[in-house]
């Protein structure tokens, strides 16, 4: 089944660009949700078997990253957002360009690191690093609190992709703990977004600028 891994990783990379170019919040969240579902499929493909814990792990990933967290985000924009645009600090074309540069750098950097003799796929390391960089980009160049959460999610997805190389090393309980922490983090962030919108009647973090030197 490993021949399917590369195409899916390419899809994940393309979704990074969709996220960078998205002008509507809805598209952005959908891109991340789709990416989360692909991660679940990747877990099964990387392990190459249908053992119970693999299926559970994949199921939990799809349920959390693909369904529940995106639903929470959609709920949040229905509840609080007045304007549904992304409001970038850096323009879309520039973001896409930076994303491309980041992906190229990730490919170059991955070349300098020695890969195991029987890798799951040689694309895993660059895809992971490039997704982490995309997450950073979304996090730093979009001003809404909710887009910052999405940026954090993309970053987490990147870390998760690297985890595909370590299916045997990371025990099931720890993986579940990581997912649970992520879920609670997003949940708490959701509550805070709600409070921000009530307090400032906007969810732009540019309002959050009172604390500084």
């Amino acid at each position: 089944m490993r021949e399917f891994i590369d195409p899916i990783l390419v899809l994940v990379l393309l979704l990074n660009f969709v996220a960078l170019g998205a002008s509507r919040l809805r598209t952005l969240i959908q891109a991340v949700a789709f990416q989360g579902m692909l991660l679940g499929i990747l877990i099964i493909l990387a392990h190459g078997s249908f053992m119970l814990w693999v299926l559970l792990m994949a199921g939990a990933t799809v349920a959390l990253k693909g369904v529940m967290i995106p639903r929470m985000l959609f709920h949040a924009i229905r509840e609080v957002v007045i304007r549904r645009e992304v409001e970038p600090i850096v323009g879309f074309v520039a973001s896409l360009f930076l994303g491309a540069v980041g992906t190229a750098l990730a490919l170059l950097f991955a070349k300098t690191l020695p890969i195991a003799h029987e890798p799951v796929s040689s694309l895993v390391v660059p895809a992971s690093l490039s997704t982490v960089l995309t997450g950073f980009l979304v996090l730093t160049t979009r001003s809404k609190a909710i887009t910052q959460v999405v940026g954090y999610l993309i970053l987490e997805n990147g870390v998760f992709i690297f985890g595909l190389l370590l299916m045997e090393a990371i025990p099931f309980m720890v993986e579940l703990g990581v997912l649970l922490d992520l879920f609670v983090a997003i949940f708490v962030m959701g509550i805070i977004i709600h409070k921000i919108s009530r307090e400032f009647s906007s969810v732009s973090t540019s309002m959050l600028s009172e604390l500084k030197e």
Partner: protein
Amino acid sequence: MAFLLFIVPLVMAGLALVTPSNRWRPWLIPAGGVAHLVLTGLALSGGPVSALQGWLVLDPLGKLVLGLISVLFVVCSYYAPAYLALRAERPNRFFCACLLAMLGMMTLVTLSHHLGLMWVAIEATTLATAPLLFFNHSPRSLEATWKYLLIGSVGIALALLGTFFLAYSSIREGLAPTLLLDDLVRIAPQLSGPWLHAAFVLLLVGYGTKMGLAPMHTWKPDAYGEAPGLVGALLAGGATSCAFLAILRFYQICQAAPEAAFAREILVFMGLFSMAVAAVFMIRQRDFKRMLAYSSVEHMGILVLGIGLGGLATFGALLHLITNGVTKGVLFLSAGNIHRAYDSKLTDDVRGAIRRLPVSGVLFLAGFLVVTGSPPGGPFISEFTILTGAVSGGHYAVAALYLALLAIVFIGMGTTVLRVVQGVPSAQAAATSYRDRPQLVIPILVFMGLSLLLGLYIPKPLNTMLHDAAAYLEVTP
């Protein structure tokens, strides 16, 4: 035993959630603190503590941090009910529960010998503290909580990537993959060098964010500025110590692999850089709680600097972990009292704290003197040990820079502290009903006493623990 240590606080947190009375609920905090202190005492004095096939082990380093957290929490917990009584208008259900959950998760960090589990516990500590920062429900505390949560989570995500890199460095060499600390230290010499380097950098950035090392410290002034003094003390003495412990774990692996020189250079640089950034921002600081945050950045810098220098400085850094922790208790709690009395934390409004609050004001001043390394406080001994370590190791430039930065911090912090404590309070400042009362000043006196005690005499059991921990850290296979 290992389970009891972190489950008891979590059970108490659960109890706090279901206790209906806003007035009696805060007393669960000291109850949990005392229970934890008793268990910690048993664990420290008894035989080896371990569980789950080496996942949970109480080693000498963990003992040191666990002891610090337990003492810090129990003294702060005595302060909590009186503080919450002052803020009776605020519901404290989540505050009490999160405070106890934070204790449980910090304990789990000190016990974890599985690096994945340790990551989960540290992230859980972050999540448990977020509601504590939001206790005041003001727009400013909202901003502080958001920054803390987002910057903390991103930092921790990078630490997870670093943990994965570390695991991969063993797979790359065809070894059985593992994230157990003891196994990793044993196979450290065979680990793949480039991956280990990349892992260490990511972990230092990730857990360094949690610890508040510059330049990842940006959440700290906001969080410490807006959090209640009690939470500030636990964050600056407890949560940051846990992140420091995480960095020590990875340093231990680098030390066992012949990569110590690489790790040490980075640690020395990060340490000096943090001290320098703190020194710059402390000059002309008008907000005395933010000033304490920069003081925390400075002391985290001193800790990693000491580890980076190695040898005698390692012992100094471990001692500094303890002395800094208890002294931060003095500063944050007394600053919290002053904040309550004046209803402001800006030096423009706060004047004459010694006249307005004879006990808290004097303790704030004394805390400043002790934390900046004036004898006979505990930090004087630990900072001096680090200096001796630097000189005896031949790092003369580092030693000179270290002394210069300590002097700048002393002057910068002194200006702000003297403005707060000297002079005559304005009539407006006397308007609040706050008065020093025993329950709000005894914990500060206890912290001050501990800090002075450590400066004059290190008790034998603590001395043994410190030597064991230093030897454990420097161990090579």
